[in-house]
């Protein structure tokens, strides 16, 4: 298993569309992938679980540990990690 820490940058938090993108980024990947919110009680959720994602309460600025386990874990980590780091749907904007 490998993991990578990223900061969640969608300014609207982990809303349904962002969750769907995270889910879709794992199409064709078999590794199990989980997200741990290091700023939110360290709860760990399945990166493919739509309801788990949107009820995770992850907000912009939260540090997220992405963990992947499987033969294509490197690709899984890159897909989800880069997507989260890039702001998913709405890259956050300063005042």
């Amino acid at each position, binding site marked *: 298993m490998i993991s990578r820490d990223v900061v969640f940058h969608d300014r609207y938090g982990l809303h*349904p569309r962002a969750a769907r993108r995270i889910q879709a980024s794992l199409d064709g990947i078999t590794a199990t992938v989980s997200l741990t919110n290091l700023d939110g009680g360290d709860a760990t959720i399945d990166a493919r679980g739509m309801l788990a994602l949107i009820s995770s309460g992850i907000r912009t600025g939260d540090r997220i540990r992405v963990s992947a386990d499987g033969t294509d874990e490197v690709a899984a980590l890159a897909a989800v990690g880069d997507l989260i780091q890039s702001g998913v749907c709405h890259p956050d904007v300063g005042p």
Partner: protein
Amino acid sequence: MKRLHGLAAAPGVARAAYVRIDPAPAPAGGRTTAAGVTGEIERLADASAGAAVELESISRAVSDDGHPDEAAIFEAQAAIARDPALAALATERIKGAHDDAIAAVQMAAGAFAEQLRSLEDELLAARAADVIDVGDRIARRLAGTRQPTIGLDRPAIVVADDLPPSLTATLPRDRLLGIALAGSSPTAHAAILARAYGIPAVVGVRDLLDTLSAAATPGNGIDLAIDGGTGDVFVDPDPGTIERLDHAAASGRQRHQQDLVEARLPAVTRDGTRVSLLANIGTPDESDGAIALGAEGVGLFRTEFLFLERTTPPSEDEQCTAYERAIRAFAPHPVTIRLLDVGGDKPIPYLPIAAEANPFLGVRALRLASAQPDLFVTQLRACYRAAAAGPVKVMAPMVADAGDVDLLLALAKRARTELADEGGAIGEVVLGVMLEIPSAVLVGDTYFRNIAFASLGTNDLAQYALAVDRGNPALERYRDALHPAVLRLIAQAVDTAARAGIELSVCGEMAGDPAAALALIGLGLRSLSMAAPSLPAVRRAIRGSSGTALASEARAALDDPSAKTARARFDRVLGTGGRG
């Protein structure tokens, strides 16, 4: 007439008869027996899959209609319908409590919705509606009832307590003139879809339903008027209000249409002085709107959005992606990226800046580079890489003299050398400075030859030249950048830049103020960058003016006794179409 007030959710004015929508409640669940458990679980799986397929087809229809972002709402709902977690919770309920599939799926959706509401985040709590909506859709399939749709037999404003996303998707766009909701929020899907479709909407109008129930239906057929830009709702509006709203709607539409048409006209004075008009942007998302209004590139791309409100600095890749988006949108026109401009006034967790009594006279912007060179080298590396996608200019803020320019050039050289050694694709970057500290203008002749361009940041230039805090409202009367002292600094910058043969532009608010823009052109500026909404008025002012007249007015303004006199001069020019 009765006037109510809600939240502006989608701009525009509508007045028409209203149709009240009370969505039929979702079917009620029941019980099953031990023998029925397996059957109910199977029925639930079928109905969930069916609901997902339905939602995916709605998503495709919305996308084909030209709204891919809004289509994603329904794609997300389809994913909720397919989520094994929903089925697992419902199945547990069927097995454990002998609920039938309808009751079980509603209970499961309700539990997840409750979890979302408990997050105390308004945006995520609003998404609880999505989960309930999906649960109801599955329940309706189980009960064999049709999904509700909004049918309108005539053009009307739709009134409801709230509109769930699935209902909003079925809105008949040809007859839907407006939406007024007693509940909901501007971030709810009904509001998002209304904005995408250009339908005026007001939400959160408390008392709306009661007021409508109490109001007698008037005979003239017009019983509701809404202004989605202000949040006003008028029940049985009087003729004066109707006229005012109609007029505002017509002139707003006309003005916007006119602006879009005129955006294609060159910004050239009546006697042939051509001026380039560019946009200031704060995120790549603003690109399309600016291009529609005729921006010939970006004169100021503020990059702070990448750096603020986070705990670690943005990576080079993240920056590169954001810059590329704007560069691709504007190519072949150039995008001018301003290096990070922050200081002690906006604390950043990963950038330790000691507390300062005067952050605007402190360690800010390029002055951070001595202690934090890597921050700027990373940003410059992202700029060089993004430049492979189109023309890029980079300027440093808070430059005081030749020493700061040497620092900029050294940072840029390091970034370029590193990238060249690594062998990745890089593009040309044109380097320049912001002229916002008076000293940088006064000694421009000592370093202009080392750079390709300079851009006047008139807000700070005026603040520093006039000792007027930009944020202090008590100093309003000192703030006008048309102060002759500022005009003289600008005139000197024009002269020095011409001698050194470098390009000079303006990217402060002054460029977006029509009277001040004319003064700048009179002083010899030929490139103005401003907030995109200011482009139409400035373009119009330029096209109505005479370059020769502006030059003589500007010369005279240098000797005016006050900003007030100088402004009156250019207001007059503006009023007479520059013929004076």
